[in-house]
Structures are given as C-alpha cells and as structure tokens.
C-alpha cells in the first residue's frame, strides 16, 4: 500500500566547470526513485543554478520506500554529445517513515562522484505522505525505529525487551559481474553503491518485520555489516535487539546522566572470570563441526553440544525463572549497557569462531548457507553461556574476516543472568531502587558467579565478594559490555591491548582452512594470557568492552584484543606476577631477578598512575545483614552452594595467587619485556574503549571525533610480536596529535590530569588573549578513545614477491585485451599480493575541565557570527557529554566508493584517503543537518577497504559508516527551561566548535 514521495530541487552551488570554453556549466537534475525518473529544466551557464523545480511526485509502495534510496543525479547538458554526469546524491528516506522522527529532509547535500569526489552542492527538499496500511500480510515495516546505540536511547523508556533479531541478504557483487568488463569504473562503482543501499534497505525492512511480529517497535544496538566475499558474492547482515520503546514526554526530564554518574568514589566489589571460548573449523561440504576447546576452557568436556535443543540442557538451568528467555531461540542482546538492576550476574566472555570456505552464492534469494553458518555459531555461543550457568548473552556481536576464499566467522558476547522481572513485566527503568534485593547487591551483584561452585566450567579462584561478603566472586572478570554505571571501581581505568601475529604457510582451499583453524585456539589462548598479564601488571582485576579480532591474510594471522581494564572493588586484589626460570639456578638467574624487580616496580608505578587504592577491608563491609536478600538470592543459585554460604571468609587476598611466568630462553625474556611493559601513556592522557572512562567523570562538551587510518607493510624480517606491538603503540601514540592540537600555542598549558586549580585557570585565561580557542587553553586533556581496529590483511611476504606479482599482472593486462577495465581495476589490485596490515581507528577525544569556572567567559567569547552551515558533531559514544539528546531522527547508514586514476596528483595514497574520509564526514553531516539534526551518536566506520596499484596510479576505497542522527541541546541552555540542573556537568555551548 502506497505512500507518496515528493521531491523538489531548489538550487545548486559551487558546481564544477564542465565547459572549458565558457568556464561555466549548463546543469540539470534527474530525480529517480524506483523506475520513475523526472528531470528539471537546464539552468544554462551557471555554477550556482537556481532550478526551483516543481514538486516531483512518486506514488510507490511503502515496501519500496524502505528499500530504495532517492537518487539525484546532476548533469551537464550538452547539445551535441552525451550529457556529462557531475555527480549524485543518494538520500535514504527511511527517517521520514516513522511518525515521531523527521518530517522533512531539506538542505544542502554534497554532490558526490566516485571518481572526482565532492563536486559542488545541491539543495533538495523531500517529503513523504504515508497512508495507513492495515494489511496484515504486508511486507513493509514502516514505523519500526532503528538505533545503532547499544543502550536504551536517552529520551526513551524500554517497556519490554523482546530479544535478538537477525537477518541477512546476499547478492552478486556487481564488481564481479561480466558486465563489469565493459562498463566504466564510474558505472561499476555506482552500481555497487546502489545495490548496497538497496540491500541495506531490504535488510532493515525485513528486520523490521520480525520486530513487528515480536510485538516490538524498535531495534536497539542495530549492527549491520558487509561481507565482500569477492567472486562468491556480497552479504549484508545485521543483528539487533528488538524492544518496545516509549517516548518520555519532554517535560519529565529523565535521568539522562546514568552515563555520567561519578564513579570514582566507590569502594567495594570483587570478582573475576575467564574467557570461555571454542574454535571450530569446518569444511563447507561436511556437516560436522569440530570444536577445539582452548586451554583456558577446561571445564566443559567438548563443545560439540551445539545443535541439540534445550531439552537435555534444561537441567543445568535454573528452573524457577526465565521461562520467557528460554523460549527464545537466541537469548542474545546486542546492548552493552543496561538500566541498573537489569544484569543480575555476569559469567564471563563467550566466543565462538568458525572457519569456512566461501563458495559462489548460487541463488541470491536463498541465503541459506550463510544463515546456517551463523545459526551454528549462535548455537555454540548459547551452549557456552549455558555452560557458564547463564541464560542470556549480552554485549553480543558478530564479525567476519575474509581473505580470498577463506572466511572466519566470529561471534562473542558476555554470558549473563538477567533480572526476569524485566523480561516479563518489562519495566526496564523503574522500580529497581525500591527493590531491596537489587539495591543491596547493586554495587556488586553483577560480579557474583552465576555458575555452580562445585561444577565450575573452568578453574577459577573463588572468594567471597569484597563488597557484600555473601556470595562468591571470581578473581578476574572479563566482559564485552560497558562498565555498569552502578559498579564500584577504585582508581581509573585504562586501555589494555593484546596483539599477536602468527605466520602460516600459504595454502589453498581446505588445507588453508584447516591450517587456520588449527592456529586459532592457540592464538586465543595467547591473547588471553597477554591480556591477563597486562591486567595484573596494571593491578586491575576486570576487563570491560573486550573485543577480540582475528584477521586472516595470505600467510599470516593477526589477533588483536582491546578492552578497558578497571579495578572492581568487589573482586579480590590481583596478585603480582612471578617470573621463574625453567630450572632453578639458571644462568640467567640474575637476569630474571632484575626482570622481576622491574615488573614489580611497574606494578607499583601503575597503581599510582591509575590511583588504585582499594580500601582496606574493614568489618563495615557487611553492614547490617538483612535476612531476606540472602534468602532471596538463593533462588538464583543452585542449592549446592547455598548451604555453607557464610562459613569461611577468605581474607588473605593479594598473597595467594601470584601469576607465574616461565622463562626458558633469552627470546622469551625479550618477549615478556616488550609485551608486558607497554610504553606508559603520557601523563594526563587516558584512553579506554568503553563508553565511560572509569574513574573520570567531569567531561566538557568539547568533543572531537577523528578517524585515523594507517597501512603498513610488514616484511618477514620484522614479523615479530614486538614489531607488531610497536605498530599499535605508534597508532595509539598518534592520539597525541590531539593534544598537540590543543596544547600548541599556549605555552602555559600544564597537562595535568583532571584537577587543575581554579587560580591557574584564571591566569591562563588572561594570558591567552585571543578570543579564538579560548577554553582550550584551560582544559586539561584527556582522551577517551573508542577503539576498534578492524584489521585487514592481504598478505604476502617479501618485497621481491611483490615485484614479481605486479609484473605478472602487468603482463596479464597487456596480453589479454578483452579483459579490459575489469582486469585493470580489480584483478590487479586483488591479486597484487601483499602483506599489509590495515588498521582503522576512530575515536573521540574529550577534554575535561574543572567545571565551575568560566562559564561566563565562554559565553562571551562565542563567535558573534553564526555559521551558515550547521555544526554537526559526531561521536562514537552513545551520548555527548554535557549535552542532552532530545530527539532521535533515524539511523544513518551510508556506503561510499571512491576511486582515482590519478593517485599521485591527489597526493598519493594518504592524500587520497584523507580527502575521501573528509568527504564521508561531510556527507554524513549534510544528511544529518538535512534531517534537522545537529549531531551523530554511536557513529562508527564499519568498513574501510583500501586497494591501490601505484604502478597504474590508481586506488580504490570503500567506506561504510553508520550512526544515529539526533537533535541535542546543551544542558546549560536547558537549565533555564527545565530545572534539571545537573551540577557540575555544564559545558559551554559555544566551546565545542573550538576543538
């Protein structure tokens, strides 16, 4: 059933000169939706044409409205030859399809060409009139809201969380179709962009249908990915969490600051937990799966239980609750932060990987193979979670790494037990504080082990919780979620990374897949060990936001794990690290003792650095024992342990489990050294990969989002872990640029941590005479980094190889003429075998400053002239510090291809990519502004594929970005109207521009 789409082309500006003779352009516009096309008049001889067209009306099904983008093409009219395309704008009209969101899209859009980049701008107005559709067999799902944000969005209330939704669609990649041999690169790129836009529209619609079936009205934590499988096709898949959201009336200010609640003071909690993981490898044609238990995961016999339905396992589960959850196929949640009280217990990280051989997708309409693959992995995750005694997985995500025909599918999440009340009654954000049980365990409850003490799935040291003293906690806790806002931590958190690379033989097909799957468990194990060591070295006991990526290349595998380490006061203090030689009285004894000393020193230094001073345990720990909570708590725990709960309190923390590292040769010494002792972060500079920086809460509203891409060529010679380590360290160090940016020019800037005294700020204020950038001078700097390193490896080894490879392809090109552009453009790049680590980083830097000062100054200095272009902020976080989101306008999901045949002229690969990223930012900002928004939250660059052929002076790059467009207002502005004065968190509205 129909809707009416209306578009009006208003004007253009800054168009490129298309007619060399007159230095002008005769531009007109084609507006296309589905198969209908309209044209404007030609606006002769102008670089700033005014078309002021009529309203072009398209009468279409709402199904099409969801799938198709509005396509606007700007052309130069040519009387004698074919019209030249200037560029295109694709507008996703999805945000117009639900009632509360944007009602009109109107604004200036950059005109984009895949070969030339942005070429001028066009002003467009788009509206949609939807007719109500009551057809219950409808294929559309208009009205379902999508959020990339992985928590319940501000200004909404979740009345019910329905659970996991997933979908995938497959198609042939236009780049690999026969027609690509005869069409221009531009046509090919555009076909690809359009197809992907269509596929993501379709995917969103299908997910929407599933949500409607479940009775929900929104998808939160929507994660969409592309798998460019090359010859075998193109897969677009998405996962998310279906919810029923209620909009909070704007009058009742919600407690928006759950994110920002100062965490720094707390002092109780204990815990720990291991990674529970299994790697399985499988040849596509065979229908068995081999689960390879890793060494960490010792408790559970074999992971091969996947596929069996709930029946036999049911005994493992707590009977009394969660029926709602169990009925679900996959009790997964892509959310990473939850309302207080929602999470009862956290078991630990569960992950599963599987190696597959890609095969051509024969029938795009039947994406069953891929579905089956993911289904398998999800089953595995589910069974792992059960083994940990948990009935749900939170912070769930999926990813792939593809190299030629081998594909590693990975999924990971955190096993957890959720509060059943939320599942049934579904009041997510109310009534938790009045519940005595929850409030009693609020600060430590999630740390308590969910599994059976006598039947532990892995070896762990259990102690009584250092906060409540009633329940057992592990010694270390690893999770993929954000630090719950109620958790009590000591000191500050920091980013912890483990990096690893493994060589493998070059192989084909099945052999290759087997080799990879044999390596995987060892890599996981080693990554885990590294993480554990680094965690202890920092004297911390829990990891949040753990994200492990394994990338595959021609002849190596690369693993990267990033997480944020914190000291949870509910868990026992971590033991030290003990170095041991292989044999006592070894030659290197002296050496060993010196290393030991250095390690101990480092621990001490780190303790100071992160201000970890866990309170000495005193008797107050238990407070007034309330009988009911304990009683109640048993409900969640198996009876085996409930008997002797309060018997022996183990207070001997800190001494018992020193972690022992064995050194057997001098190489190992080096290794340990470089791996363990990361260069210390510069003072006053903090990074983490979670939404909140544990231990630091006074952010200013000055947020700067950046993207950094580096490509390095690795040669065999330095394929060591140290080498790899250095690369990533360098990458992180790059962050310092941000500081340079802030610091330079103001010599007075002292870069201390959070606290600068009021006086000092005043003097700096005076010395910094220029009104420009004020504010910056007094911000002490802190960066929070949202890290994700999608790693890509296209591998080959020595440089000589590369030479030959390129030569071969060169000959190939000249010899086979009929391969034409296809050979030119694709094969050479893809076949150019090279060893390349390709890292992408995005993040956001926040500057924090003492709050009470200088608001008036800032106001005074805001630039007098209003910018003619709306300022759009972007952040990978789900919130903006000091700023309140008042409306979500819809999801931004864009895919761009850029190609050049004049790489050198555009400043080489760096110049090319730099301008492309800037263009992508510009297009995202323009779309947000056209929707009436002024910020993008939960922004992420999902994909960045870069290929180059310097010999041909060519390069191509694909970027996929997503995020939520929002309208937000500064809390200072709001104070006057609403009385939700949020002390201390005020950020001057005008300062953000200065960063």
């Amino acid at each position, binding site marked *: 059933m129909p809707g009416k789409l209306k578009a009006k082309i208003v004007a253009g500006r*800054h168009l490129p000169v298309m007619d060399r003779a007159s230095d002008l352009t005769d531009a007109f516009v084609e507006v296309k939706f589905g198969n209908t096309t309209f044209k404007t008049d030609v606006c002769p001889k102008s670089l700033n044409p005014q078309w002021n067209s009529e309203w072009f009306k398209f009468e279409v099904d709402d199904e099409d409205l969801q799938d198709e983008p509005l396509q606007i093409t700007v052309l130069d009219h040519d009387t004698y030859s074919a019209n030249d395309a200037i560029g295109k704008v694709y507008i996703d009209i999805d945000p117009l399809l639900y009632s509360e969101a944007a009602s009109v899209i109107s604004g*200036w859009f*950059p005109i984009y060409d895949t070969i030339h980049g*942005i070429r001028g*701008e066009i002003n467009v107005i788009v509206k949609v009139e939807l007719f109500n559709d009551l057809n219950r067999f409808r294929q559309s799902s208009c009205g379902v809201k999508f959020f990339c944000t992985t928590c319940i969005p501000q200004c909404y209330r979740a009345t019910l969380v329905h659970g996991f939704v997933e979908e995938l669609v497959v198609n042939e990649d236009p780049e690999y179709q026969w027609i690509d041999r005869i069409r221009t690169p531009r046509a090919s790129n555009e076909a690809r962009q359009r197809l992907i836009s269509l596929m993501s529209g379709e995917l969103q619609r299908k997910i929407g249908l599933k949500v409607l079936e479940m009775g929900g009205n929104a998808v939160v934590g929507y994660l969409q990915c592309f798998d460019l499988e090359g010859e075998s096709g193109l897969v677009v898949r998405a996962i998310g969490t279906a919810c029923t959201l209620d909009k909070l009336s704007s009058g009742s200010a919600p407690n928006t600051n759950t994110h920002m609640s100062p965490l720094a003071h707390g002092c109780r909690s204990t815990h720990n937990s291991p990674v529970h993981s299994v790697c399985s490898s499988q040849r596509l044609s065979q229908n068995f799966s081999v689960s390879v238990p890793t060494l960490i995961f010792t408790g559970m016999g074999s992971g091969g239980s996947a596929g069996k339905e709930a029946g036999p396992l049911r005994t493992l589960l707590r009977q009394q609750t969660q029926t709602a959850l169990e009925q679900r196929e996959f009790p997964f949640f892509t959310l990473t932060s939850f309302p207080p009280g929602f999470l009862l217990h956290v078991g630990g990280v569960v992950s599963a990987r599987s190696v597959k051989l890609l095969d051509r997708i024969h029938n795009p309409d039947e994406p069953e193979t891929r579905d089956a693959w993911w289904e398998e992995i999800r089953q595995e995750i589910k069974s792992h979670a059960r083994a940990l005694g948990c009935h749900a997985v939170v912070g769930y995500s999926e990813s792939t790494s593809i190299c030629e025909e081998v594909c590693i599918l990975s999924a990971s999440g955190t096993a957890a037990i959720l509060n059943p009340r939320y599942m049934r009654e579904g009041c997510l954000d109310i009534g938790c504080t009045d519940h005595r049980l929850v409030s009693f365990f609020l600060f430590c409850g999630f740390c308590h082990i969910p599994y059976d003490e006598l039947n532990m799935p892995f070896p762990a040291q259990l102690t009584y919780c250092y906060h409540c003293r009633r329940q057992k906690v592990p010694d270390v806790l690893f999770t993929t979620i954000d630090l719950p806002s109620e958790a009590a931590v000591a000191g500050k958190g920091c980013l912890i990374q483990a990096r690893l690379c493994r060589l493998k033989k070059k192989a084909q097909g099945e052999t290759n897949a087997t080799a990879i799957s044999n390596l995987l468990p060892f890599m996981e194990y080693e990554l885990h060990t590294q993480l554990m060591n680094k965690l202890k070295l920092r004297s911390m006991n829990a990891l949040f936001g753990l994200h492990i990526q394994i990338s595959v290349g021609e002849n190596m595998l690369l693993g990267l794990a990033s997480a944020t380490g914190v000291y949870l006061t509910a868990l026992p203090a971590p033991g030290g690290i003990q170095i041991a030689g292989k044999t006592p009285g070894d030659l290197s004894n002296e050496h060993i003792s010196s290393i030991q000393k250095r390690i101990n020193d480092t621990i001490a230094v780190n303790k100071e650095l992160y201000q970890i001073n866990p309170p000495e345990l005193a008797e107050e720990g238990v407070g007034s024992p309330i009988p009911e909570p304990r009683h109640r708590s048993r409900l969640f725990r198996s009876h085996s342990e409930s008997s002797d709960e309060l018997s022996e309190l183990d207070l001997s923390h800190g001494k018992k489990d020193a972690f022992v590292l064995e050194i057997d040769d001098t190489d190992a010494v080096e290794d340990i050294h470089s791996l363990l002792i990361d260069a210390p972060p*510069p*003072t006053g500079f903090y990074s983490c990969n979670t939404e909140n920086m544990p231990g630091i809460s006074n952010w200013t509203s000055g947020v*700067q*989002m*950046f*993207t950094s*891409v*580096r*490509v*390095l*060529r690795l*040669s065999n010679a330095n394929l060591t872990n140290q*080498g790899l380590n250095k*690369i990533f360290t*360098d990458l992180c*160090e*790059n962050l*310092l*640029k941000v*500081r*340079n*940016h802030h*610091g*330079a*020019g103001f*010599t007075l*800037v002292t*870069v201390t941590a959070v606290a600068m005294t009021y006086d000092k700020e005043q003097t700096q204020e005076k010395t910094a005479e220029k*009104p*420009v*950038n004020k504010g910056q001078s007094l911000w002490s700097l802190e960066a929070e980094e949202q890290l994700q390193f999608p790693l890509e490896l296209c591998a080959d080894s020595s440089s000589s190889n590369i030479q030959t490879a390129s030569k071969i392809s060169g000959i190939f090109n000249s010899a086979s003429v009929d391969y034409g552009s296809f050979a030119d453009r694709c094969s050479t790049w893809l076949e150019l075998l090279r060893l390349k680590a390709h890292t992408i980083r995005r993040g956001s830097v926040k500057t924090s400053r003492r709050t009470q000062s200088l608001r008036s100054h800032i106001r005074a200095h805001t*630039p007098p*002239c*209003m*910018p*003619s*272009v709306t*300022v*759009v902020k*972007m952040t990978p976080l789900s919130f903006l510090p000091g700023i309140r989101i008042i409306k979500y306008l819809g999801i931004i999901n864009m895919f761009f291809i850029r190609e050049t045949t004049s790489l050198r002229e555009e*400043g080489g*690969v*760096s*110049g090319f*990519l*730099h301008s492309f990223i*800037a263009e992508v*930012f*510009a297009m995202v*900002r*323009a779309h947000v502004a056209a929707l009436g928004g002024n910020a993008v939250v939960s922004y992420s660059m999902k994909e960045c594929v*870069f290929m180059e052929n310097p010999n041909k002076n060519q390069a191509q790059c694909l970027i996929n970005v997503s995020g939520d467009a929002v309208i937000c207002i500064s809390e200072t502005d709001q104070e006057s109207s609403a009385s939700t004065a949020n002390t201390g968190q005020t950020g001057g509205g005008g300062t953000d*521009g*200065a*960063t």
Partner: protein
Amino acid sequence: MSVELDVFVGNTTIMDEEVYQLWLDGYTVNDAVKVRMEGGVMDECEASKDVLLSDTMDQYRTFQMCERLLHSPAKLANQLLFQIPPHRQIMLIERYYAFDDTFVREVLGKKLSKGTKKDLDDISAKTGVTLKSCRRQFDNFKRVFKVVEELKGPLVENIRQHFLLSDKLARDYAAIVFFANNRFETGKRKLQYLSFQDFAFCAGQLISNWTVGAVGEYNMVEDMDVDLDKEFLQELKELKILITDKDLLDQHKSLVCTALRGKTKVFPEMETSFKNLSRGLINIAAKLTNTKDVRDFFIDLVEKFIEPCRSDRWTAADMKLYLTHYTNSAHILDTFKHQVVWDRYMGVVKSCIFKMYHD
C-alpha cells in the same frame, strides 16, 4: 616495515595555528618538524618525533586541500567539506592573505604579470622569504587585483567583502592594487628607505582624495578608486600660476616667511630655498597628466622636496610647520583663484610628505 599510508582526520577540521604559519611560510614538512621540536612541543606533550612528523603531514595535507577554498574565501563559509568553526575560518583567511612587508616592498608598483612572477626567485633570495611563500603572496595580489578590477564601487569595501579580510588588511591590499594599477615607481635607490606602510598610507591618501571615486558623485563606476581623476589632473595645470606669475610667487613667499619667522632654527634655509621648493611641488602637480610622470610621483617628491630639505637639516616639525603655512598662505593670495584644486592637491602632498619624511 614501512608506513605506506597514514592519515588522521577529525570531524571538526584539525589545525594548529603554528603549523599553519609554518606552512604559509613555505617550510617543508621536515623543516617544520624541526622548528616545532625546537619550539618545545615535545617536552610539553612527550610526543615522539614520528608523531610530530605524522601530525605535521596531516595538517599540511589539510591546508593543501583548504587552499582551493581560500582562493575564494566566501566559499569557505558555506562549503561542506570541512567543518571549521567561524573564528578559525577568519584566522585561516587572514593569515593566508597576510604578506611580508619586505616581499611586498619588492613588487610594489610592478605589473602583476608572468614576467614579474619569473623574478620571484631573485626576490626570494634577496628578502629571505621562501619561494613558495613568495608565490603565494604574489598570487594573492594577482587574485585580488583581478577580482576588484571588474567590480564597481569602493575598492577597500570590495576587497573586504570578497575576501573577508580585516579592515587593515583590506586597506593594504587596496594600496597594492592601486600601486600595481598606476605602476608607481618604488624601486629606485632613493626610495629604498621607505617602507611598505609608508607607501600604503600614501596610497590611502591618493585613493580617498585624487581618484574618481573621491569626488563622490560617481558612486558606482568601474575602477573608481583605482584611476586618478583625469579632470582634476587637468585642473592641476592651473596651479602653475603660483610659480609663473612673479608677483604671486613673491607674495606667497613673503606671506610664508612672515608666518615662519622666529619659529624655527632653519628659517634662513627655508627662506632661501622657498622658490625652489615651491617650483618643485607645483611642477609635479602640473606634470601629472602624463602617465609617465604619475609613475614618478614619489621619486619626484623625494628629489624635488624631501632631499633638499633633508640636506638643510629640517626636522619633521619644521617640515610640518612649513607645509602648513605654505598651503594656508595660498588662500590669502587675492589673485589665486584655484583654492579647491589647491587644497585637494596640497592636502595629499602634505600628508604624503609628512609620512615620507623620516628624520
């Protein structure tokens, strides 16, 4: 392991004023890194050289990409590619169009042509301004010249609106355009002691008093502030009477001398050189109808007036006194009918000489 690609892009365009200045000054990336290291950024931030290098590269790339926009600054405000806060835009533009006085002094009054551009390496060697910076400055002059050439209305205002420059900078550019258009000679040895600011001041005087636009009735004429008022130049010939008419000359001299007597130490010298000086100034006025003589206006002022006075050791105060009385006394002359032209001429000459007379 070599870094093949390394970019760092911010949503709000990342730029550092110090690096921008180094870029404008034509430093290479490596030199800029050196300067920054010496400047102590490293100590402040504990950054390594590699980070600094990579940061400098990022910013240089950004500036290169922005440069196209800076050529028509109005675009900078409504382009979408870079998100730059307004006050930063102003800074970017102002600095981009800023120039070195030593450089501009070399090209002042020259034709802004390809030929001059070829000589830039000599100028670069002479002034110590890098060639890259010289080119940028020269191209800026040329660009401004070309744009305002085709515009109607007041020069300074046009420059300010089209290039979004501050009032001061717009006036300086107006001076440069004015000099380039009239091709005033400024390169002679005798003029070397004058700075660009001296000339800029004089240009301002000429623009606001001697051009077509100065009269006020023609408000929107092309080149109104660039071309001198031809009618006025014709009328200047009438002033000759002050030196050709013997009575008038004597009368003028006695009036001036009466007024000056006892007020200055150099009175005797003033008295003796009166006729020479007066002839000098009036002859300059009378010849201004020839384009060639317009070009030599400044050199003539120096040769015919400033140098004689300087050799007689007049102080600046003497000069002021003399010129004031010289101008005013002409009003009292009964037979001298060209008071308006006289004032228009002497007003400018007087202030130019004040500016050009360095003690």
